[in-house]
């Protein structure tokens, strides 16, 4: 019952003085602050609500809430699975399940992405849980990039969104899998361990499994949820500020349309189950540029960058995102040129 895994026994970094300060006042600070904030908000409500009646800010608030609400079930799913992996699956399982050599482990991890239905919000906590469990970072990355893009729900959604172009489904599957495997290999070849900050997990030694599960789940959800809010706010701001009519002028140029849709995929942070329908509605654009949108979106967007920063550290997230962004465009254009 006792966790003896050396990875999990890693203690949390705690500043000496902060710890001492908290020992003196164990129950003040954050709980009191929370209650005060809530009470103030409730009392200030008659002044607060009229601030949100203008059409622009009301739309912002609606889109912000919508992105948060829509992502939460998938985040809960991902956090639950990650916490379950941390609490119940021994690291020896992963050592046995994955081939030893990275050359074989990375594609296997990439293909494993097929089994996790849901949005990208779920795959990041799971990848973090896998790394904490001793899975090599290259395989975790391959999984993290493929799971949101090639799972059955997303593929079916793409098929429904492009009824006359079933090759988009195949294109998406191939391009995203290729991307995941290539980035995984790139990490295995060039990645430095110093770039990854080990997921900061609470000290779980000596806990029962249910308690370890609950602690893990709570910590992961609070952390990832906060970053989700950042992504949702960014997406809402850009949706209300960026006039989509601009796209009309851009769609005619093949180079510009690819670049603009790639950037749009990053800033709009639309869930991978829905981006197929958004891509389908952008009928002014070529199929290839829309494939770029579908391949870049689940791999790199403001929500994901924020989640990756929370799970793996800011430096890692920046390096991974930029590299993936460029490679995603390349993979999608290549597959698009072959298939479409």
């Amino acid at each position, binding site marked *: 019952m006792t966790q003896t895994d050396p990875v999990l026994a890693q203690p*949390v970094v705690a*500043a000496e003085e*902060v710890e001492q300060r908290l020992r003196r006042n*164990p129950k003040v*600070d*954050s*709980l009191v602050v*929370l209650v005060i*904030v809530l009470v103030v908000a*409730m009392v200030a409500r008659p002044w*607060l*609500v009229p601030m*949100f009646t203008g*059409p*622009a800010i*009301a739309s912002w*608030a*609606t*889109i912000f809430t919508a992105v948060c*609400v*829509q992502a*939460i*079930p998938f985040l*809960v*799913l991902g956090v*639950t699975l990650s916490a379950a992996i941390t609490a119940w699956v021994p690291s020896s399982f992963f050592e046995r399940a994955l081939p030893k050599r990275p050359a074989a482990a990375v594609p296997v991890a990439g293909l494993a992405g097929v089994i996790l239905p849901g949005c990208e919000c779920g795959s990041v906590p799971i990848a973090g849980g896998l790394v904490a469990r001793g899975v090599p970072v290259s395989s975790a990355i391959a999984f993290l990039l493929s799971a949101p893009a090639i799972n059955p729900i997303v593929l079916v*959604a793409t098929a429904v*969104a492009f*009824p006359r172009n079933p090759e988009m489904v195949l294109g998406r599957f191939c391009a995203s899998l290729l991307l995941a495997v290539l980035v995984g290999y790139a990490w295995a070849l060039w990645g430095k361990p110093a770039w990854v900050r080990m997921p*900061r997990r*609470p*000290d*779980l*030694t*000596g*806990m*029962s499994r249910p308690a370890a599960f*609950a*602690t893990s789940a*709570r*910590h992961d959800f*609070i*952390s990832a949820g*906060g*970053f989700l*809010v*950042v992504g949702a*706010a960014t997406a*809402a701001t850009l*949706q209300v500020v960026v*006039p*989509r009519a601009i796209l009309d002028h851009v769609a005619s140029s093949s180079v510009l349309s690819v670049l603009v849709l790639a950037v749009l995929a990053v800033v*709009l942070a639309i*869930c991978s189950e*829905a*981006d197929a*329908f*958004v891509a389908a*509605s952008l*009928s002014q654009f070529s199929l290839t540029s829309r494939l770029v949108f579908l391949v870049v979106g689940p791999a790199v967007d403001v929500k994901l960058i924020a989640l990756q920063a929370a799970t793996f550290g800011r430096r890692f997230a920046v390096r991974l995102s930029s590299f993936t962004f460029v490679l995603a465009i390349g993979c999608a254009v290549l597959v698009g040129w072959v298939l479409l």
Partner: protein
Amino acid sequence: MKRETQNLVLLLIGGAVLKISITGAFSLYVKQGLRPYLIVAGSLLLVLGVYGLVIDVLGYRKDAEPPAAEADEHGHHHPGGSSVGWLLLAPIMAIFLVAPPALGAYAAERAAPVATPKPVSASFPALAAGNPASTTLADYSSRAIWDKGATLKGRDVRLVGFVTPRTAGGFYLTRLVISCCAADAFPIKIYVAGDAKTPAANTWLQIDGTFAAPVRDEADQYDIATLKAVKVRLIAQPEVPYEQ
């Protein structure tokens, strides 16, 4: 952010999600099919928060705290990673205090104009029975433009939508179509022909009418289906404001 505070936040966000999924307010933000998953997710978060708080209460009641309840980060501080958790208060307060409304005319007008999506099958089944026959704006638009209204001729049709203004005079009956959540909404517009005077934008109407030839949109880029209005009625915003 301490353990107790985190559990309280879990409780609040779970409660917020449960609230909107039980009252039906979720329809303003996400698609219908998400409801059972919202209920499950909200309940899980609620249970997780309550479990954590109960463990704490039981722990304080005993003089010697058992190792299981003690051996977590009680007293440890998590800089950075858990401080971001405070941001979760934003959606919590949005749902409980502000209750943002459904997207309406503003969002419909801001969206870039887009042609009616081409339907999945080449043939259209007969229009639903009834006089007038109720159908969605997306369905009506699809039949009018891609089928040249073959299944609509000679039928009275009932459409529900909200008003968006038309620069060339008159108004459009509009509905926002979502596939996942309000973030991906795009508008379907129907031009309403007839003598009806233009109501204020965002007014919800139920219009009975007949098929008329499509018109071009204001930028002359694509066709917009037309409904010749026979009867116009003001209605309240439907519980599910978006077409799915």
